[in-house]
């Protein structure tokens, strides 16, 4: 036993599909990669509350209103589970939020697109959550215990999100002419941005190799993207809508669709802050945080006073 290094123990656990826990020794790269990945994921959930939250006050029925509220709330909850998972790696929520608010941290490019119509709420639930779920299901088996446990909880809760999105799309696609046009328009605008969610092509994905080795990721960006297209096409067809890709074609040989890649130049620009809503999203988060400062200070002051009172009693 004496000759076995920390590194060997760590590698041994990975090899045996065992979980790494917060107090276990881990390579610094692994810790850093995890903090980056988990916090980006958390930021995405929190920023993701905004485009959908945009339609809460305009939801067209009382049922739609409570469903959307519950869904946006879940996203906040998921952000929270993920922040607490990241915190077990020795970084504080304050630091993580600060990285988000100053624009230092990244989050999913998808949430920098605007939600322009009610159909976008359907499209986001159906396509964006659909794509997110494919990533998340795989992450339930990631090697870091707190991350994996957070993902299990998230996947359980997420299961209604995609369904509610598709339900909105069916109401629209089988509704009036205006509604169907609204649905097609939303699909046209969200199709390529959703495909970008899986990240750049494998050939250009700098962080993938380690992530696969460490079981923080278990399928490549291109594999996931292919699977997403394959499973989504028939859902589009059922709605009587058209995938906005004239190159989309079934390829018998690979048992999957050939399709047009999203515009990676646009992707890079959105990631670096030039998307249609990057500034609005960050400004909204910063405003909420700044407006909340006196609230947090009051709670802190009150707690301090009360613990002094408890101590004196």
């Amino acid at each position: 036993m004496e000759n076995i290094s920390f590194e060997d123990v760590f590698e041994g656990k990975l090899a045996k599909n065992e979980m790494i826990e917060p107090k276990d020794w881990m390579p610094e790269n692994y810790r850093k990669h995890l903090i980056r990945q988990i916090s980006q994921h958390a930021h995405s959930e929190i920023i993701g509350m905004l485009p959908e939250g945009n339609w809460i006050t305009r939801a067209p029925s009382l049922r739609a209103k409570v469903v959307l509220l519950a869904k946006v709330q879940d996203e906040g909850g998921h952000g929270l589970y993920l922040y607490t998972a990241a915190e077990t790696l020795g970084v504080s929520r304050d630091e993580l939020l600060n990285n988000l608010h100053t624009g230092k941290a990244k989050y999913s490019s998808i949430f920098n697109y605007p939600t322009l119509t009610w159909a976008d709420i359907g499209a986001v639930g159906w396509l964006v959550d659909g794509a997110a779920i494919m990533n998340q299901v795989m992450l339930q088996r990631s090697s870091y215990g707190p991350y994996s446990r957070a993902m299990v909880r998230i996947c359980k809760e997420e299961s209604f999100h995609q369904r509610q999105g598709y339900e909105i799309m069916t109401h629209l696609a089988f509704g009036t002419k205006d509604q169907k046009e609204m649905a097609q328009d939303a699909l046209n605008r969200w199709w390529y941005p959703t495909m970008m969610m899986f990240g750049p092509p494998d050939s250009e994905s700098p962080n993938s190799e380690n992530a696969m080795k460490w079981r923080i990721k278990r399928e490549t960006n291109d594999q996931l993207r292919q699977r997403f297209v394959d499973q989504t096409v028939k859902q589009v067809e059922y709605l009587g809508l058209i995938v906005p890709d004239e190159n989309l074609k079934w390829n018998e040989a690979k048992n999957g669709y050939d399709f047009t890649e999203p515009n990676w130049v646009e992707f890079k620009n959105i990631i670096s802050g030039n998307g249609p809503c990057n500034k609005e999203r960050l400004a909204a988060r910063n405003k909420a945080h700044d407006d909340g400062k006196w609230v947090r200070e009051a709670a802190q002051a009150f707690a301090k006073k009360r613990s002094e009172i408890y101590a004196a009693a």
Partner: protein
Amino acid sequence: MTTQEALFQYILRIGDTNLILGQRLSEWTGHGPFLEEDLALTNITLDITGAAKSFLEYAAKVEDKGRSEDDLAFLRNDRQFFNAQITELPNGDYARTIARQVLVDCFDYYFYQELSKSNDETLAGIAQKSLKEVTYHLRHTSAWLERFGDGTEESHNKVQLALNELWQYTNELFEMNEVDELLIKEGIAVDLNLVKTKWEKHISELVEKSTLTIPQNVFMQTGSRKGIHTEHLAFILAEMQALPRIYPDAKW
């Protein structure tokens, strides 16, 4: 006025108060002062919007003219809304949102206690369910009132200012008219004088515990029982009702 007409009016009043308050609170989702509280307030919003749905469903049934709860929520004009004015005021800062919520939660707490004894079984049923929810809301918002009142100087001043400005809208909650008179005789409606006594005692104790003071000699606003509102309601409705009005044939 028949009992049916009075009952319809009465349920609209309760349903609209929940609907408009839920609408205002929902503006906070995604913008709360910190993540945990964002989710907590959204839970309250969900309860209140759910209650609005239940009451309006029942109102539609009592009216019996083929309208649904969504028709009532999305296709009436501002003069046909009977929510208390306090619910339509802008959220303001978090102190104002909390202060308004405490005042309304406390009203609902005693109101639903009485309403759950109503001879009208449907109303009593919704009230029993809502009472459990509101008991928690009141606990949550009371704790915040105390934190603000006895927190920092800044929070104390903000929440005191909120109370001072909201107070003029509190009397409306207890106003009674011919609807109440008729329905109290039937054992359906709640005597709001009874609720007022309990509310005043509860609020004055809570305000004192929070090191705050209740504003004195305030001139009270009135109007919502007749469908007269502040300037804010029409804007709320313009936003909330936009889709069903632009696409009148659509189902969502």
